[in-house]
């Protein structure tokens, strides 16, 4: 059980609710900033948890405070329509009898808060909906509908955005269509976002924090990057395991078409133009795309070579090893490398050794 004690936590939630043979039993703090993913297999209770936060489900026992305000305790239950939330359902659930514009207006007109996210036109612009305003939902694609749902929720000026598997009903194309908007929201929105997902790729791409759930309980929670590289959690052992690194864009080299991103003071070169200087970007490095070298390689085609310190070595099934490495001054940035047992025999990697990571540049950012 890993948990981070974040002092900024504003959302305190405790719910106990039995539905047939299933029991939801959670007690946690959710961060007041950034994106929190509720992650777990289907049937683990993550959607029920989210619905309890929204007040769509009333847990038999529970308490919920948001920024010091009580939404639920033994004597209080604030009904959903009085909670300053935005909620995105798995299917867009637009009102079929209203145009896109009226769908967007629906929540905004009923919201007591002053409209601080701009008007309908502005939001429509932001979400690429301005040409669709007078259409009926029947004539929109899946991705467009989900974007309207997103805009409709944002126009209520919510203090928190809750999303229930917002991408899972969409096909690959529609996902590609909407993810950039979600990433944009993650960067620009000041309110916390909680979203439910069973797809680790979505989580890697969008989340800052992760709450891991199984059979109605929270089994682990903490910052995403720590969780993914935690040897005690199942993520590191997965075949497709990867490390997520946060960095800031330094510059773009027009001639070589490479973007330099600084991660803990180390420059990493990424093909293509990615973001503007100073912007924060997230990169994903698959564990199998990293090779290790005792000496700093002098002659190599690999662009990105970084020094790191081995934190731990762990044997996996099928003759493979995970090497957990620390980057940066305090080794606080965690990276996982996956090597064969033959290599481990030959090099006998052990904690506290300094090694050099060779990262195949082309594989650093994966398209979703």
């Amino acid at each position, binding site marked *: 059980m890993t948990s981070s004690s974040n002092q900024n936590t504003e959302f305190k939630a405790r719910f106990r609710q039995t539905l047939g043979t299933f029991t939801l039993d959670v007690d946690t703090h959710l961060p007041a900033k950034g994106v929190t993913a509720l992650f777990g297999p289907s049937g683990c209770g993550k959607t029920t948890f989210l619905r309890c936060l*929204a*007040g*769509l489900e009333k847990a038999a026992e529970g308490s919920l405070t948001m920024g010091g305000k009580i939404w639920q305790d033994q004597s209080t239950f604030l*009904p*959903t*329509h*009085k909670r300053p*939330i*935005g*909620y995105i*359902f798995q*299917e867009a*659930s637009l*009102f*079929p*009898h209203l145009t896109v514009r009226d769908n967007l207006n*629906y*929540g905004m007109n*009923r*919201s*007591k808060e002053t409209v601080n996210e701009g008007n309908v036109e502005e939001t429509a612009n932001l979400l690429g909906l301005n040409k669709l305003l007078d259409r009926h939902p029947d004539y929109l694609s899946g991705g467009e509908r989900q974007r309207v749902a997103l805009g*409709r*929720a944002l126009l*209520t000026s919510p203090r928190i955005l809750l999303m229930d598997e917002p991408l899972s009903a969409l096909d690959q194309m529609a996902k590609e269509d909407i993810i950039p908007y979600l990433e944009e929201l993650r960067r620009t929105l000041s309110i916390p976002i909680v979203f439910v997902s069973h797809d680790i790729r979505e989580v890697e791409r969008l989340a800052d924090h992760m709450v891991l759930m199984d059979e109605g309980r929270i089994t682990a929670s903490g910052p995403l990057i720590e969780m993914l590289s935690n040897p005690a959690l199942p993520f590191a052992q997965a075949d497709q395991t990867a490390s997520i690194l946060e960095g800031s864009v330094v510059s773009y080299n027009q001639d070589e078409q490479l973007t330099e991103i600084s991660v803990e003071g180390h420059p990493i070169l990424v093909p293509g133009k990615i973001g503007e200087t100073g912007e924060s970007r997230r990169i994903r490095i698959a564990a199998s795309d990293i090779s290790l070298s005792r000496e700093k390689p002098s002659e190599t085609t690999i662009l990105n070579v970084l020094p790191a310190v081995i934190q731990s070595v762990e044997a996996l099934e099928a003759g493979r090893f995970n090497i957990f490495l620390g980057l940066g001054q305090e080794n606080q940035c965690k990276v996982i490398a996956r090597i064969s047992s033959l290599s481990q025999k030959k090099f006998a990697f052990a904690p506290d050794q300094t090694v050099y990571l060779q990262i195949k540049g082309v594989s650093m950012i994966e398209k979703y």
Partner: protein
Amino acid sequence: MTETIWLTTKLAAVTTVLLLLFGTPVAWWLARSKAWWKEVIGAVLSLPLVLPPTVLGFYLLIALAPDSPIGQLIQAVFGTTLPFTFEGLVVGSCIYSLPFVVQPVRNAFEAMGDRPMEVAATLRASPANAFFTVALPLARPGLITGAVLGFAHTVGEFGVVLMIGGNIPGETRVLSIAIYDHVEALEWGQAHLLSGGMIVFAFIVILIMMMADRQMRRRAQ
């Protein structure tokens, strides 16, 4: 004859409006409530579907009589009794046609599911507001079906009117009674005219219903 047709239309229209006003909340409750006994209420409200109308008319005649408790209450409040009046026919027709309005509206509310109301709640709409701005518009085909069925059924109603009407021209003498009278009096010419008109009317009603149904299905896709 014009008087009879006008009276019948008025009876059906008043009944339909009242049933939509009172039947829609009932249908909503039947569709939404999780109470185990709601089906008991649902069954009671559906009784007119299976009971011979004369049974209903007979009990109404007894229940609304001036010396019955209900009859006395009505007399005390309104200063008149209901049998042999237009108002009495409206009461009888409302009871008789209730399931024909409630059932389609209930089906429409049930087909809608919980989701639209949940969405409306997350968009700050109070339950009452969501009912009027979301549930009712979405249930429109069901409301149309209910209204058409309720209207048509009231026009075709015979047994209840026969029992509590008293066949007063301009007050309680509706089409079905007039047709019955003509047949009994061997005035088959007039009976043919009115009966033929009823067949055309019934055909139009069913046509409207089928078109409303098609619209509902297209919306569902």
